[in-house]
């Protein structure tokens, strides 16, 4: 029982999916390791941001640039997308037909795209208030961190589209299954990073 239980942290497909064989599930473990490495990158950028908070050089600071209402909406969108991806993962594990899976994935994708659009709108507003990276070290630090998260979301969306394409071409085979499990890890990871951004970059910047 416990022996078959965990091949890697997180959602395991379990014995019902015998085709997602051992060697492919090794990839999920590997992806967790990659996430640790990626987290180091974000961690360093967070630390740099905190150090650079004071480096406004007379330019606009957090109080002039940040709009919490918009950021709050982005947060809700992203958290909801994490929930819908969770529903997709459950559909992957427990449902025979692919339809609910595909629907949840498309909902997730739309939420991801909406998040990116909202974030771009935010950056645009910041630019309008003179919050461009060439203005100060503080704004540079902001734009080295937050858009990197956005780029990750964009990459995850592209990956999601590619996986939907793979489902269309190959059906729900072990390659797609392990791909979805890995994408799920990335998606939830980006959620956690966003929560850190919300608390540290936005709330922390405003205190």
């Amino acid at each position: 029982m416990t022996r078959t239980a965990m091949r890697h942290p997180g959602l395991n497909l379990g014995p019902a999916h015998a085709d997602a064989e051992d060697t492919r599930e090794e990839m999920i473990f590997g992806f967790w390791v990659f996430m640790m490495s990626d987290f180091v990158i974000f961690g360093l950028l967070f630390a740099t941001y905190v150090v650079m908070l004071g480096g406004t050089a007379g330019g606009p600071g957090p109080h002039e640039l940040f709009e919490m209402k918009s950021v709050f909406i982005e947060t809700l969108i992203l958290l909801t997308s994490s929930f819908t991806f969770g529903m997709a993962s459950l559909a992957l594990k427990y449902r025979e037909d692919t339809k609910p899976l595909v629907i949840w994935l498309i909902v997730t994708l739309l939420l991801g795209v909406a998040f990116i659009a909202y974030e771009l709108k935010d950056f645009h507003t910041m630019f309008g208030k003179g919050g461009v990276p060439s203005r100060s070290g503080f704004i540079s630090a902001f734009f080295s961190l937050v858009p990197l998260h956005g780029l990750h979301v964009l990459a995850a969306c592209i990956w999601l589209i590619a996986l939907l394409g793979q489902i269309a071409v190959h059906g729900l085979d072990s390659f797609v299954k392990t791909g979805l499990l890995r994408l799920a890890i990335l998606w939830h990871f980006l959620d956690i990073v966003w929560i850190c951004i919300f608390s540290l970059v936005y709330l922390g910047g405003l205190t």
Partner: protein
Amino acid sequence: MSGDLPDFIFGKLDWDTLPFWDALKDPTTFKIINAVISGGAGALVVLGALGVVILVTWLGKWKYLWSEWLTSPDHKKIGIMFIVIAIVMLARAVIEAVFMRAQQAVGLDGGFLSPEHFGEFFTTHGTIMIFFMAMPFLTGIINYVMPLQIGARDLSFPVMNQISLGLTAAGAAIVMISLVFTPFSTGGWSGYPPYTERAYNPGPGVDYWIWAVTLSTLSSTLTGINFAVTIYKKRAPGMKLFRMPLFTWTALTTAILMIFGMPPLTVATALLALDRYLDFHMFTSDLGGNMMNYVNLFWAFGHPEVYILILPPFGIFSEIFSTFSGKRIFGYPVLVVATICISILSFIVWLHHFFTMGQDAAVNAAFGIATMLIGIPTGVKVYDWMLTMYRGRVRLSVPMIYAIGFIMLFVLGGLTGIILATPSVDYQVHNSLFLIAHFHNMLIPGLLFGMLSATNFWFPKALGFRLEERWGRRAAYSWIVGFMLAFFPLYVLGVLGMPRRSLTFFEPAYLPWTLIAGFGALVILFAMLCLLIQLWVSIRDRHQNMMTAGDPWDGRSLEWSTSSPPPEYNFPVIPEVHSRDAYMSEKEQGKAHQVPDEFPDIVMPANSAMGVIIAVTGSAMAFGLTWYIWWLVILAGVVTLVAVIARGFVRKTTRVISSDEVRRTHLAWLECVRKTTPVDRSKEQSPENQGLPVPPVNGAVQ
């Protein structure tokens, strides 16, 4: 309008970037000398590349090269390709070192190199030695040996392994191309801003450096993930963690250091690129930039990097001391714990690289003590190695000569490290040649001797014949002597106050020491020549040094239990492990070379062009970014994206090797082993040694 199109196509490239152009326009003797040196180097790159293309075409080997090497997912071939890159880059960087030593030997009130040229020399020398010699060398050796040692058929992610190789190759190519389209950075291998910022350094040099290093760090991060997952997930049944050979242990800790230690440099170079390309102010000297962030990020990478470089040689020397003393390694668990301690300590000492940059005394003291602590596990290792040799039957083969040279010189370097770890002393000698002497004292006897020792040790495994001993000895002794002559004088010069990276000096007392160091550099050049001759003689005489039976040194771990070279799948049947020194205990119990009951079909990864594609797009993108050729950047980016997505649609990622083929190959090899005469250790270096040792008696190697 007429000027726009060439600008669009060629970016900032123009005739001035060719290394001899300046001297043509304004020929003075000084400029001509420098132009001959740099133009010669550029010509060598072009001719070398052309020569390889012509040679391969002449031999008609393009198809062989493509299907057997470039697209092969086999960890052994990828390992060898990593090592080839490392050796080519080693040759270039050694020649650069000789030029720098020559400059300083005649550097009293002048010399022959221009400051820009000298700056490029020390920058490329450092960058290449760390990122394109040391990293690919150790990556190649781990790639080759580790899966064999743990009884696996390949790494966990063979295609990612190809991509790692492709990224490293792209970075190395960029550094080589910088000899043709000059200049490279003059900011040193650490590239500190604000000197490397656009305000002070608007040219392409720093951009070359940024992208070459970034490619290398991405490669090493992926490699680290690959190695760690392989060691966690693919060990043969019974190969518990505390039964792994010590080299595999150091491979594991190195992999973990790569996973956590490489990202800081990726961040540092990426932020520097943002500063330079998009006018950010992360590290600039105005508008709230803070260059101390760069220094911290760089050394948060830089210190783990030091142990990424030194831990694999520790593992290699552990194998070599035990094999060539004919004894079990002394204190295996202690060595493992010491390895782990070193890798943890490596993350908490980075500040000792900049004691003088403004922290208060208490912080410096804390980091100084942490630094000195590293001497404890390292000292434990040295004692364990000595006690392994104690009362063993030590054979002075080439790997062992390097190992003994290492142990003596490395202890000396360690002691000067303890001196430097004292902040108050560091204030006196920091940024002087004392520091240069110290880290070369660690890296040449440590890393480089380790790599050369490993090459001599595992070469017969990889190629099926031994390396020639006589020239191997000459190379080893020349390295040891050349190292001492070239670097011990630098300790003296450092204490006399000579700063590092000095183009010229006005203190006559330095002169005798720079001359000795210059002579030492020539001895090292001779050592490089010996290595080349050794390789040449070995290939020429390969038939009398054949080693098909696979075990020339009476080895102890699983890699010696297969044929030389091993089949693509390494082991016809995955071995079962019951103890440490798994193969030695098989030999003791007379269980080596048995015919398995049945042969399975073996599933191996299929060939893939991903590595080649990444190598091409990676170097194209880096080149385009350096010279502001935006269409090339976009094209390379799109091709990479399409290739990665398309790869996701591929379903035929494996191929099956039939049990018949496996049986035929294995039985043929066993037949060959049966015909081989076993030899005892006194004949190890003679042609009679065909890779089959006399079995041990009562646990004693014969």
